[in-house]
Every structure is written in C-alpha cells, then in structure tokens.
C-alpha cells in the first residue's frame, strides 16, 4: 500500500511540474506579451523596451524558464506582472474562495444525487412494466441535467435569480457585509454558482448510485435479509447503501480535484472571485508567472483528488495497489 501511494505521489509531483512548466511556456509562446497588452499601441518603443527589461521579458524564453525554475525550487513562484504581488500570495486567497464553492457544490451534489440514486435504484420497474414512476422521472431529470454543461446551468440559474429576486445574481458577498467568515449573505451568494456546478454532478452521482444500488438490491445477502423479514426501507438505506457506495467513493476524489481546478466558466459568469477567474485574467494579460502558478495550483488539486481516489480504491479493493 505504502509503495503504491509513494508511486502516485511521485507521479503527482511530476504532473504539477509538467503542467505549470508547459503553461508558462505556452503563455510565453502565444502572440503578444504583458507589456504589449498593458501599455497599448501608443506607448513609445523606448518605454516598451524599458518595461520588457524591467519584467525580464526581454530575455530568451529559455533564460526566462531557467530563472523561473530556479525560483520555483526555492518555493518562490515569482511576482505577478498584472497585480504586482507575489504569486504565492494571490493563489491561496483565490484558492480558498474556489474551495468554498467546490465543497458547497459537492455537498449539494451528494445530498441531492445520492438519495435520489438510492430511490431510483431500489424501486425498479417490475417484469410486466408495472411499478413506480418515480425512478423514471428521476432518470429523465438526471439525463437532462447530465447533458447540460455548468455554463448552461449557471446561465439558467442566473436567469431565475434575476427574474425572481430570490437570490443574488452574481458575486460572493454583498456590499456592506463582512468580507470574511461564514455568513448568511455568503450562503445566499453560493446558491447560483454552487447550484450550477452541483446539478450536473448530482445527476452523475444519481446515475452511478442507482446502478450500484440496483445491483446491490439483487445481491444474495440483501435477498436473505429481506427474507428474514427486515423492513425493506431499512435494508435499502442501511445494508444495500453501504454495499453500493464503491463507485461513488471511487470518483469522489477526482470530482473534488476537478471542481477545485476546473470551475472556471462558472466563476467567470457568476463573478465568483476564485482561482479560475484569476487564471483567466492572467491569461488575458499574458501574466506568465501567474498563469504558471494558477495552472500549478489547479494541477495540485487534481493530483490530490486523484491520489485520494486511488487511496480510497486501494483501501476498498487491495488488488489495485498490487504492482
């Protein structure tokens, strides 16, 4: 088990290094640079050259990469050209906001998707087509939500928020409200972005759980428990649920990683000040060090999520950890 986790950890370090390095190089290779973007076309050539020298953008790409690498090994991610602040200061404050959004979305998705999956999986239609209509409705809703990307769900929820006025349309906190801490205002602002991320995710959880539950319901130990006269609801929600959690446990870590590293679109549309928005701003401004930092942070989340999933899988199924 330990060698397995160690192997995954080494791979995770390599992933983070590769992603942040390639982001820096790709951002540098793209046409234009921070100076062109920030000074505009009216700046005189001497001013432009002076600014390039100040930011080190006049060096060759190899030299810039060497400088960056030299700093990174000392855990210095460089200084953001855009915000004139250390990248290592900018990322944690935005990553914290992304984490709030991601974990809320995960909570919503789990609380919605898991029970619905249990209901849908445990109430299958009988052989003659008779049976509950509820599983059909749940399945159809899940399929619709699964086919809607977070971009559409966020636009839909923003539309609902604008028309009803029930919740804020965008942003993280209202003016005049405390800038930190868990407040009712923050929870209200979370509804739209977390909902946009959570709905497709809940549908995925529901589908996975329904499938696993349907299999678990037919398992001999469940049939035997039912035959002994234990109430069906107790068997479903206690014994079968426990036995059917493996698929969701396997994807949970990856979902966490994906949410933390990939809620860009929702963050931009709902004005959520997270890592995704920071990276978009950095890309637009050609802030190469911030781009590399954000990509690195995203890949750390993804690697950690993947590691978590692997560890969980190895725990429930020791065969996956075998060399």
């Amino acid at each position, binding site marked *: 088990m330990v060698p397995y986790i160690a192997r995954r950890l080494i791979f995770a370090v390599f992933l983070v290094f590769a992603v942040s390095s390639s982001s820096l190089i790709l951002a540098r290779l*793209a*046409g*234009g*640079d921070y100076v*062109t*973007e*920030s*000074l*505009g*076309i*009216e*700046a*005189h*050539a001497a*001013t432009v050259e*002076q*600014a390039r020298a*100040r930011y080190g953008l006049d060096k060759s790409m190899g030299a810039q990469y060497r400088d960056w690498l030299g700093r990174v090994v000392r855990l210095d991610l460089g200084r953001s050209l*855009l*915000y*004139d*602040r250390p990248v290592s*200061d*900018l990322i944690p*404050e*935005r990553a914290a*906001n992304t984490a709030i959004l991601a974990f809320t979305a995960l909570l919503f998705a789990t609380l919605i998707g898991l029970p619905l999956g249990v209901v849908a999986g445990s109430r299958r239609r009988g052989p003659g087509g008779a049976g509950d209509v509820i599983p059909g409705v749940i399945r159809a809703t899940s399929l619709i939500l699964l086919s809607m990307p977070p971009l559409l769900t966020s*636009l839909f929820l*923003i*539309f609902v*928020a*604008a028309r009803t*006025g029930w919740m*804020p*349309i*965008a*942003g*993280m*906190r209202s*003016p*005049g409200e405390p*800038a930190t801490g868990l407040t009712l205002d923050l929870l209200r602002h979370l509804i739209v972005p977390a909902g946009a991320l959570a709905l497709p995710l809940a549908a995925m959880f529901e589908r996975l759980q329904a499938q696993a539950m349907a299999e678990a319901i037919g398992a001999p130990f469940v049939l035997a428990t039912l035959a002994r006269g234990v109430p069906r609801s107790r068997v479903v929600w206690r014994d079968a649920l426990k036995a059917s959690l493996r698929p969701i446990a396997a994807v949970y870590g990856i979902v966490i990683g994906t949410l933390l590293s990939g809620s860009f679109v929702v963050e*931009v*549309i*709902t*004005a*959520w*000040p*997270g890592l995704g*928005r*920071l990276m*978009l*701003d950095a890309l*637009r*401004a*050609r802030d190469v060090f911030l781009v590399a930092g954000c990509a690195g942070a995203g890949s750390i989340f993804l690697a950690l999520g993947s590691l978590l999933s692997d560890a969980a899988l190895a725990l429930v199924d020791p065969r996956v950890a075998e060399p």
Partner: protein
Amino acid sequence: MGAACSSPGTSTTGGPATNGAALGVPRGGNLVVSVRNEPRSFSRLAARETTTDLLSNLTQAKLVRINKVTLEVEPALAESWIRSDDGRRYTLKLRPGVVFSDGQPFTSADVVFTFKAVYDEKTGSSLADSLQANGKRLRVTAIDPLTVEIAFADPFAAGVRLLDNLPILPRHKLEAALDAGKLGEAWNLSTPPSEIVGLGPFVLSAYIPGQRLVFDRNPRYFRKAPDGSALPYLDRLTIEIIPDQSAELLRLEAGQIDMTHSEILPEAYAPLKRAADAGRIKLVDLGVGLDANSLWFNLKPGAFAGDPRAAWLQRDELRQAISLAVDRQLMADTVYLGAAAPVFGPITPANKTWYWAGLPKTPHDIEAAKRKLAAIGLTDRTGDGTLEDARGRPAQFTLLTRTGRPDLERGAAVIRDEMKKIGVVVNVVTLEAGALVDRFANTGKYEAVYYSPIASDTDPALNPDFWFSFGSAHLWNMAQKMPATDWERRIDELMAKQIASPDESERKKLFDEVQQVFVEHEPVVYFAAPRVYVAVSSRVTNLTPAISRPQTLWEPDTLAVNK
C-alpha cells in the same frame, strides 16, 4: 503680455462651479457601479487600463479637466492660466486652501513632484509618453507655492489640454519611493487603502480582490456645488467587479447595481429597453460615438517581399475598392443592429470641433470598385466570379480581427461577404486581443486588420502618434524614420503646423486638409460609428452623461442617488 485662457469658476466658496448641478440634489447614499476587470494598481502611473483609470479619477484630481460634455478645458486644481505670447509657456495659478485627503496642503511642489515622478525612467510610466508635445517633454517650474510655469519646447496649440491626463500626486507620501527608485511599485494592490492619499472626491476605503472596491466620500474635497455646499453628494461609491457582461446587465435590471462603467453593446439594447419601459432603469442615447470600426493594410515597405501579391496588396486602389464595395449602411444595420451611422474618415460627427462635414463621402458603388481593382491588374480571367492577377493567382487576403468582440466578428463577416461580390476572397482570422496587437504593433506579420482603435483625445494635437509618420500608433506603418510616401510627408507637414498654430480657425482649416489627404489615400478605411447608449438604475440622479469615456463617471462628484 500673455493671454488669459480661463477664469475661475463662479463659486463663491473657493471651489469651481460644477456642471449644471441643481439645487435640492439628494445627499448621501451608496452608488454601485460595475466594471469588468480588476484594477492593476492603485497608481495611474503604474498601469493603464479602465479600472485603474477609474480608480484614479475617483481618488485623484488634475490641474485642469476636459468637460466630457462640452469637450472644453475647465479649471480644476488650477483655477486659471495664462499663455505666453510665443505659445510655449503657461503660468497656472493653483487654487488656494486645497488639501489632500490626509489634511496635508496641496502646493506647486506637488505639481513639480508629479511631473518628476512621471518622467522618471525608473517609474517607467506610459504617462510619460502621453505627456509630451511634439515628442518633447514639458518643463515645470514652481514660481511660488500657488503658481507653476509649464513650458513646452515648441509652440503647442492644445496647451494645457494635455494636463487632463495627469493626476496630481502627494509629494509627502511618495517622495521617498521616488528617491528609492521604487515609485513604479508604490501603491500596488497590497498597499493598505489608508495609504492612498489624493485630491479626488473619494478615498479608497476597501479593496476586496475579485469582488469590489469601496470608496468613501473625501470630506476635504475642493470642488463645491453651485449653492456652495460641499461635494461629492454621495457618501459612498462601490465598484463591483463583474467579468461577464450578461451577469452585469441582469444585475442592473434587478437593481443590484446602479450603472455599468462603460456603454452597453447593441445586442443588449432590446432587453434593456423593456426594462426602461417598465421604469426599472433609465436608458440614455448619447448619439453617434467618437470611435469607428476600421480596416487597414500593412503598408510597411517590403512587408510582402517575395509574395506575388506585393504588386497590389499595398496599392491605394485596393483600399479604395474596399471603401466603394462595402455598403456602410448595411454595416451599420447588420453589425450594430441599426444603432450606428456610416462614417468616411477617422473623425466622426460626435467630435463637433474637428469633424469636417465637407469631407468627400465614398458612395457604395460595386462597378467603381471593380474598376479600381482592374486598374491594379485584378480581373476575372477565368469567369468563375473570382478576380485573378496577371498570372492567374486568385485575389485574396487575410483579415485579422479580435475574438470575443461580436461587433468586430460580425463586421469582418460583412466585409468578407461584400468583397466576395466583387470577386475578392477575404479569409477572416480572429485572434485574442494581445495576439492581434502583437501582430500589427510588434511583429508586423499581418496583411490586413479590422479593428476599432480608440483615440486618446478629440483634439488631433493630442493624437500625434496616429497622424505623424513617426508615431507609435500610425497603424498602417508604425514609427517610420522618414515618411514612406509623399502623402504621409504632406500630412506630417500639415500636422506640424496644426499643432503649433495658436489660431483655432487656422488649426481647423489645416486639419480639414489633413482629413482630405487622408481620405484620398485611405490608409485606414472607416465604415460605421456605433451610437453610444448607457443604462443606469432609476434611482440615479443628477447624471451628466457624455459621449466619451467614462460616459457616466467622468464627473463622479456630482452624481447622486434617490434613497
């Protein structure tokens, strides 16, 4: 003797009069404005972009300001000024009794310090480039604590208008940073808001990254209302950072913000009109704007060396054919959904001082366009509807435009379709803004560009980089050492006279001639100027919107809200 160029405002309380502010304007309250981007700095010297500019407008003041409605220069920190007879020196009398937001007095030493800071090489401010006349820096001398002399190397007709760019900085707060060669980094986004001191109507009280900037009323602000009472009217102004325009407009409709910082896009007009009809917002039509969409080719000599199309890509006739072939009214109707006016040159009717109604207007004439192309050897030799050169190669070029701007993408499509009608194939390629600017401003690797450049000022003397052949914004062939063509040489000569002449009517005549030469050769082909609409919530009052940016926030001290 010199000529007095302005007089103090009419207020009896020491501050200049405001722009038509009425008695009984409500006081207090919080106005919420949206912007699309984060600021890059708290200092205008360090960064040049919309939000930093806005922040500077709110927290800092200038010696003079351009009234964005009348486009005239008005007193601000300088209450009056006198121009010397040779037109080179301006003596500015500073307003007495003015103090910074921290209570320190404002004097001529702050003005001298600000110029020193802007021109300092270590500061590396792009303001240093715009604070020049004929490519030469201004010399500033403090005569006494309330008088400064600003000297231009050559006669400069636009004079103190140039100073509208320059926020006056507090020497007592920033001198140490300048001496240490670190002014470029001073007032960055990590600086505590309480350290940002200024002469503007508001003080920065909070910056929450990614969310908002909060400004509180500066109780020491120098401008007064017409009734002599203190400005600004608002107690607080909040800037919400909303990167997506759809969310921004929905929040405006829902009453969660009071106004957007910039004009609205044509496609947003219809839904906002419904909200305006329902009384939720006010929609203001400011008329045809100052900026037009335009197309230009790479006219740098040798840019197409080795390319068989070199014989015709840089010819005047090709651009003239495009100008004749593209239906400008169609462009206005299709691209801007009817909310635009056809334009034929770089100066739109919105620029009332410098627009020339007599400028020749290119008609929409397909046959004339074909004749122009035939004159440079492009005819339909195979009968397939596409023109070919003498060796049978198809007439085609690549048009770059910016991605993410629906108006530019639609406009490029119209040009492509209109050119197809005369047998020229246009390949439209969209690029992200930075990459596009890099192509035409740095690498020069492009054939043609379709874009909407923004002029720095309405006075041509303040856009020398566009007009002069040596200018850094001379789009079609930037920063030439010598004028590449006779007509560019002629424009250089006319503009040199235009910039120096003290006689406004003479300047107008000279600039009309500049426009005439420009349109004869059409280095840049202009098509349509969109109308400018702004939308504000119905509780905003005392608004004096202007055609130039920032349309609703150029005079933030007189804005008010009904509670």
